[in-house]
């Protein structure tokens, strides 16, 4: 391919990508969740829009990728953000697990259960059943959605609506890699 044709081809695909409404909505959703932080580029690197899937937003442990259905990708910012938040939290958990367990004061024990393994969490006082991962996903999702809500105060065109005002957790923000 000559240089001229290459420039035309790149220009054409770039224009096409720029006007793709699904991608624009998806990017807006990612931006609302991550607010220009390093987490945003990490999510963009790992996200994939797939057709014909029954699951809306899923983190695949095997591939390390987040898959999003076409329907969700084309939805409004708030819908995209709400769908993406738990999957992004799952993705982030892989790299922050040790720090999270230490911060939570949780010690994770592994128990054999007839051909399978399950985890048992030992807090300082009681044995709690929900795993550290599940707790992280709930709190990290909330923190990301909260991030959007705070931004909304200053700029009505951005942010995620209808999230109750709650106190932000600086440790979770730090582990997520969100900009303060």
């Amino acid at each position, binding site marked *: 391919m000559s240089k001229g044709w290459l420039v035309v081809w790149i220009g054409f695909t770039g224009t096409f990508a720029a006007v793709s409404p699904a991608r624009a909505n998806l990017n807006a959703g990612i931006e609302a969740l991550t607010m220009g932080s390093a987490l945003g580029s990490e999510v963009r690197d790992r996200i994939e829009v797939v057709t014909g899937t029954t699951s809306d937003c899923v983190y695949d442990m095997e591939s390390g990728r987040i*898959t999003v259905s076409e329907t969700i990708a084309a939805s409004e910012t708030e819908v995209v953000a709400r769908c993406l938040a*738990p999957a992004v939290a799952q993705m982030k958990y892989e790299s922050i697990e*040790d720090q999270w367990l230490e911060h939570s004061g949780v*010690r994770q024990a592994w128990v*054999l259960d*007839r051909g399978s393994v399950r985890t048992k969490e030992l807090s300082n006082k009681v044995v709690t059943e929900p795993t550290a*991962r*599940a707790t992280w996903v709930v709190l990290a999702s909330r923190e990301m959605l909260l991030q959007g809500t705070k931004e909304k105060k200053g700029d009505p065109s951005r942010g995620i609506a209808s999230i109750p005002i709650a106190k932000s957790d600086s440790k979770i923000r730090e582990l997520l890699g969100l900009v303060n």
Partner: protein
Amino acid sequence: MWKWALCLGIVSMMSMASYGRAVKNKRGSKVETPEFRAESIVPGETPESKLLVLVGQPMRVLRERGRVLYFYDVGLRGASMTATVSVRKGVVEWMTYFCDEPVKEVLSKYEGVKEGTVALSGVDKRSLRGGLRQLTVDEVGRGFVYSPRAEKVRVCLRWPTGKPFSEVGF
């Protein structure tokens, strides 16, 4: 000659100090107990009565469905994880502990490795696909848990040699 004996004495005292750790007994005085070492225990053979001498004081003890679960602090190598020893009818039945063997090494070291997936309980399945991987070798009573994206094993499992993994546990 006496210099060599002195050196030997100092070295052996230092090694004893690093091996053990101090816990307080009922009278409040400090007692040295050993750190947790997986190789000190043989599932199916080690009696419950020897655990304190072999691997020291557990951080917690739980009774659950006919078993006694002993949880041990594994120290600096895995601050947020514990080693778990299950005792049934007075004998160690199985144990799990932090380890970091390369997955490739495990696969090449053992024959008859069975692969499986660990279900993550309490996790919202709508946002997660897949799970941790599990390798088990019934012939040697050993298992290994690792993340599909990691190169090293995270948790090692041990149970009596030759017993099928599907029959071990609760």
